[in-house]
């Protein structure tokens, strides 16, 4: 089937809100090339379970596509139209399985040396979309990212946070007493001042920190039952004849919270998000540092929070992958120093991901070596690549960049 053949009844299996919004904009979709449409449907099919920012972006994009003139469609989608799509892909039920289509399309693009052309078309489209509908609106609050790294490390001699130092000021003498509590209090204060769903987050690589309901919280430890259930499910699938990595990914993509008894959770948006952290992330099921980094990436990409605090915790020591994935062993041994190195990179990626969001030039970021004196502070008023050796308390450090 091609997009021009789309009918409202094709979307009968979509959740109600997703079906409504797609059907409302069907005319616009019919004019677009097959190489593009499933990517958009992959986002839209989960509309009912998307964060507010995502819903707004999807709605605006669909409206914009419907408003394009035919001449604009030709220009905007020339790159996608030039990408050839196989007969097998065309025959796939891409309306109901858009994620599988996109995955198989990627493999096809690699094998036919069309990946660069597709990337170029996608970038061109993204730039046009940003210019037309994603114009940055002033944020109600300067965006703030906080990364707390190195939990459980007593001493560490190698230089830390070298990637981040280039973009801000490195403080070598932060007074650590009460540092974490100060940071958490700041997150609470910001959430109280600007209460908005999914605008303020705490991600914990270990146990969840205490916080009010105004803050959305995800923690590795709290999700242990889900992780273990999923690992068992994966192992069962692997043992089935004919199961390979691509089939496994397809199976994982179809899982929903109901498959794990999560249907009664009070927040269906968050429970879907949590499940996807494990079904779409790689390594999130076994290493808490990977979980924290990937969760931060997904929170920033999807929810675009105003405040995000990520506290990395020691991950388990590397053990054989098959044993880990089989589960059933106590996570007795941890690797604090290796986890610090992981978290250092995770903090750098958190800052990069934050800088991709609107208002990046005004955003602030703090990375702190927990219970130690090392921190990097990045913000519009902070000099880059400089070092401060003066003693400074956490509260004062925060006042340099945050409101």
């Amino acid at each position, binding site marked *: 089937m091609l997009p021009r053949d789309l009918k409202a009844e094709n979307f009968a299996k979509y959740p109600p809100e997703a079906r409504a919004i797609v059907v409302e904009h069907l005319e616009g979709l019919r004019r677009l090339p097959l190489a593009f449409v499933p990517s958009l449907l992959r986002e839209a099919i989960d509309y009912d379970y998307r964060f507010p920012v995502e819903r707004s972006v999807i709605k605006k994009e669909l409206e914009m596509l419907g408003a394009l003139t035919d001449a604009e469609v030709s220009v905007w989608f020339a790159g996608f139209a030039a990408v050839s799509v196989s007969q097998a892909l065309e025959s796939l039920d891409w309306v109901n399985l858009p994620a599988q289509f996109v995955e198989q399309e990627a493999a096809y693009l690699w094998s036919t040396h069309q990946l660069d052309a597709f990337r170029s078309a996608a970038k061109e489209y993204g730039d046009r979309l940003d210019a037309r509908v994603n114009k940055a609106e002033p944020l109600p609050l300067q965006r703030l990212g906080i990364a707390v790294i190195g939990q459980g490390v007593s001493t560490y001699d190698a230089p830390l946070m070298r990637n981040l130092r280039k973009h801000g000021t490195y403080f070598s003498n932060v007074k650590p007493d009460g540092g974490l509590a100060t940071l958490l209090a700041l997150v609470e204060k910001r959430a109280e001042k600007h209460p908005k769903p999914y605008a303020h987050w705490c991600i914990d690589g270990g146990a969840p920190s205490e916080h009010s309901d105004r803050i959305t919280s995800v923690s590795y430890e709290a999700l242990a039952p889900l992780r273990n259930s999923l690992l068992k499910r994966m192992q069962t699938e692997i043992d089935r004849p004919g199961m390979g990595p*691509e089939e496994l990914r397809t199976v994982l993509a179809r899982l929903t919270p109901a498959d794990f008894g999560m249907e009664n959770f009070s927040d269906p948006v968050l429970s879907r998000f949590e499940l996807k952290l494990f079904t779409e992330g790689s*390594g999130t099921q076994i*290493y808490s540092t*990977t979980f924290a980094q990937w969760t931060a990436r997904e929170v920033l990409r999807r929810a675009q929070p105003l405040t995000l605090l990520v506290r990395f915790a020691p991950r388990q020591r590397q053990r054989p992958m098959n044993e880990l994935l089989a589960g059933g062993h106590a996570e007795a041994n941890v690797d604090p120093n290796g986890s610090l190195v992981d978290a*250092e990179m995770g903090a750098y990626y958190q800052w990069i991901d934050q800088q991709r969001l609107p208002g990046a030039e005004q955003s602030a970021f703090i990375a702190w070596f927990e219970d130690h004196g090392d921190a990097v502070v990045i913000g519009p008023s902070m000099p880059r690549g400089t070092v401060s050796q003066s003693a400074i308390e956490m509260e004062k450090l925060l006042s340099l960049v945050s409101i």
Partner: protein
Amino acid sequence: MGSAVMQASPFARAESVRKKRKIVVVTFGGGARDQETFAPEGQENIPHMLSEMAPQSSFFTHVTNQGILGHYVATASLATGVYETLNNFASVAPEHPTVCEYFRKELKRPSSDAWVVAPSNGFHRIGESEVRGFGPGQGARVILPKRLLGLASSGGNADFEHLLHDNYETPLYTPMLAGGEVELQQLEAILKLSVSDFATHARTLSSPDELSLYIAKRLMREEAPSLLWITMHDIDVAHSGAYSLYIDGIRRTDRLCAELWKTIQTEPEYAGNTTMFVLPDFGRDSDFDAGGNGFQHHRTGDAASRTTWMMVLGAGVRQGVVYDTPVESIDLVPSIGAMAGFSPSRSSGKIIRELV
């Protein structure tokens, strides 16, 4: 009289040297970025290659892989000199003749003269294609150390488990073998190594690549193949998202490459007549490409994931020279052919002139 003339002839000497020439290829895998290896900020991770090997090498700073960036398909592309398009996760042979097939066919070498040491079951078809005129029985013998270890420890000894995971990209999936690889009972015949000694030694090793090096050294001692291809894979633990483990993998591979180079220089069959190639199969995604997640994967096809380096050392190689000339990873096979005296006729790569 005739034989005396022949012995004195420079042509005969050249032929004699060519016959003794040995080639060792090491893929520095799976997938390492410049910024964690030879770029200034990464050099702390490769002290052995930087200080011991680089000064003796011709170093190519700009090696591009324009093919599919999956480890098996990319290694197959390196081995055939053609950008292969096979399914990275399927148990299939390369679609074009491999360097081992060209080598054996044109130089009329026995099967014992070309070996592949590969990390996991997913690479067990890498030794030969199914192309008419080449194909089954015409390529390299393949040894899968982890597979052997799995068989040796089939009694359920948990001590071995940390070496057995197959593929970091799809850690739960272990493809079925279709035969052709060296089996356990051949350990003793080929490597002069009893199953119990093999198992005992494996207990002292910390990673699959260490096991691969151990097996490669045994092969060099017992079989002395003229073409030896070793695929390292520890670095691919990066797919787990733990940066420290990725860096540990690079440091270990650096150490193992230096150890192999030392072995080459001390083994009588290899010393002085061996050319060693070290190159990653490709890089990994850039920190700044929104389509990826930095070092963790190699999915975007961006410049960081496609561009890497190659180090060439030993016989016939200019020492301490750095070449910025762009080359492609498929140029490896034609260049080996030019050095060793065979013509990879179906390769689409070019001979790297700086090496011949």
